[in-house]
């Protein structure tokens, strides 16, 4: 009779974010910046420690890589087309911003679809995912700043080059010019501000209602949160795709894929779920979240397992269609990743399959492994690292070009972002009880048993 007599732990739990761990995280964030500077310094001296790094900087001829870019690059003139070390650092910041923006917003996505589905089981973990979107503001502002500064904007987005959409200009590119109705400065700026602003604002509403619910109780805030969730899902349904085009796909301006929005969202989603799982497991290791039992982990593990396969499906389907059709303007994207830039992006591209599908598939397939923290940590860790590589191979070939690599600069940037992310999440967690005490479905979640 163990099934319905398991002990229900107290729902009074308060996360203590000690000043010691705060300072450790800030030191780690600063260390990341130092590492980036150190890596850049070493590479500038010609010393390479990482893998796939180029020896000797900036042989401009390589920038005129295959296909459509060649013409534009050759006509570059005063424009900065040859990639340098700065490109690599900017690419890193951009890539990590997009990656962590996704993980943050998925915290909101998770809450929203659970509200709309009237799901009771994830309520014990709600406060964890609720803490994630507080970080939207950091990568969001970094993205806006990088886009606002002309030199970094030109580094990231080929389509922002002067005269590229003006007929008669020596930079004129007909293919890019036809996209000017969508890829233009005012519209792009509005979109970028809207993503960050609306996602963050809707989260503040959900958060406000969640805190108010704890004070006052009742179902009023439940219904309010559900309405906000509906609005968020409607908005996110469109913006998850458009943000994918804007933040990632428009880097390779000539190329497009109709599956890219889903692919990007799938990558964000599974990475976000893995991050939620990891946060829950770490909190459990520290003695918190005792009401999160094996069944909760099992259900979240199923979602991660399922969406890891979903990501693989979209990732492969996109590849397969392009492989079948064999149109030069489409295959160029994979050509660049397989053999372009001395083949330096071959490994980051292919490691995707192993870390994001093969390994988690084997690890998380069995029922028991989805109930054991050790296996979950292995599987989710693999997914988190794997999707970092996914965003790496989306952004690097277009921005860093022949300067890409995996080295101190990459570790440093990621360390800074990850530490700041944990800092923000920890701060939010410590602000409220670890369970939404008066959530109408809390009781159901406490007894969750499968």
């Amino acid at each position, binding site marked *: *009779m*163990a*099934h319905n007599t398991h002990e229900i732990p107290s729902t009074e739990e308060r996360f203590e974010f000690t000043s010691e761990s705060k300072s450790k995280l800030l030191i780690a964030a600063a260390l990341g910046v130092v590492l980036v500077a150190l890596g850049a310094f070493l590479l500038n001296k010609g010393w390479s420690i990482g893998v796939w790094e180029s020896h000797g900087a900036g042989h401009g001829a390589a920038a005129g890589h295959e296909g459509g870019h060649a013409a534009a690059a050759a006509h570059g003139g005063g424009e900065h087309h040859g990639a340098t070390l700065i490109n690599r650092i900017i690419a890193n910041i951009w890539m990590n911003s997009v990656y962590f923006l996704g993980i943050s917003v998925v915290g909101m996505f998770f809450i929203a679809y659970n509200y709309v589905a009237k799901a009771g089981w994830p309520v014990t973990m709600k406060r964890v995912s609720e803490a994630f979107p507080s970080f939207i503001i950091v990568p969001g502002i970094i993205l806006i700043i990088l886009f606002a500064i002309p030199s970094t904007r030109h580094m990231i987005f080929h389509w922002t080059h002067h005269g590229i959409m003006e007929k008669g200009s020596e930079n004129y590119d007909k293919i890019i010019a036809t996209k000017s109705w969508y890829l233009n400065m005012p519209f792009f700026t509005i979109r970028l501000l809207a993503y960050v602003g609306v996602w963050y604002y809707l989260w503040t509403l959900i958060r406000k209602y969640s805190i108010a619910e704890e004070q006052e109780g009742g179902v009023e805030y439940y219904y309010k949160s559900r309405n906000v969730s509906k609005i968020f899902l409607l908005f996110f349904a469109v913006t998850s795709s458009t943000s994918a085009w804007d933040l990632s796909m428009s880097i390779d301006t000539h190329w497009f894929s109709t599956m890219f929005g889903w692919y990007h969202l799938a990558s964000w989603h599974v990475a976000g779920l893995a991050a939620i799982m990891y946060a829950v497991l770490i909190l459990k290791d520290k003695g918190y979240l005792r009401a999160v039992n094996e069944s909760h982990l099992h259900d979240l593990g199923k979602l991660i397992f399922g969406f890891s396969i979903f990501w693989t499906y979209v990732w*492969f389907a996109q*590849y*397969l269609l392009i*492989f079948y059709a*064999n149109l030069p303007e489409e295959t160029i994207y994979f050509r660049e990743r397989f053999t372009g830039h001395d083949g330096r992006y071959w490994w980051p591209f292919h490691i995707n399959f192993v870390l994001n599908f093969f390994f988690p598939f084997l690890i998380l397939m069995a029922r028991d492994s989805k109930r054991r923290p050790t296996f979950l940590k292995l599987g989710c860790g693999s997914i988190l690292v794997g999707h970092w590589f996914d965003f790496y191979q989306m952004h690097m070939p277009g921005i860093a070009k022949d300067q890409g690599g995996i080295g101190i600069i990459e570790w440093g940037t990621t360390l800074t972002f990850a530490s700041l992310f944990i800092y923000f999440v920890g701060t939010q967690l410590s602000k409220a009880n670890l369970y939404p005490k008066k959530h109408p479905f809390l009781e159901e979640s406490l007894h969750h048993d499968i």
Partner: protein
Amino acid sequence: MADNKYLVGVFDDEDEVLHAVGEVRHSGVKIHEVYTPFAIHGLDRALGYDRPRMGIAAFLFGITGTCCVLLLTFWTMGIDWPINVGGKNFFPWPTNVPILFEGTVLLASFGMSFTFFVLEGMGPTAKPIIFDVRSTDDKFVMAIDLSKNKLSEAEITDILKDSGASEVNVKEV
């Protein structure tokens, strides 16, 4: 007929039947089966059932499907009738992924369904024993095979009543 005699306990509530299963088994009575209008979480564990091994069947059927389809595509595309499609290899691996997946899923699901039907004795000619028709509506029914229990009919009836059965009937099959 009438070679088997069953005691049928009828319960009004899913929590009651879940608790009763534990109590009845604790007093040494072997339960034939419990019939409920909907699935009850934890009932299989309370009844002491083993974890279903359908996954093993699914894997075996699935891997059979993969192998069969791989053989088919390899034979037709690679050996028997190679066709030049857009200058690609005669047997390119990406084109095989969807059909391999489909074949695996098809055989796994069909295999699982048939395994289930065979193991549960279900089929077009099967005659299921209906212990109480209300188990498809709003009652929760626990059937106990008297021939497989040492306790007497009266004793088991008492145990069922004590554990919350609203009525206890006798069914001869």
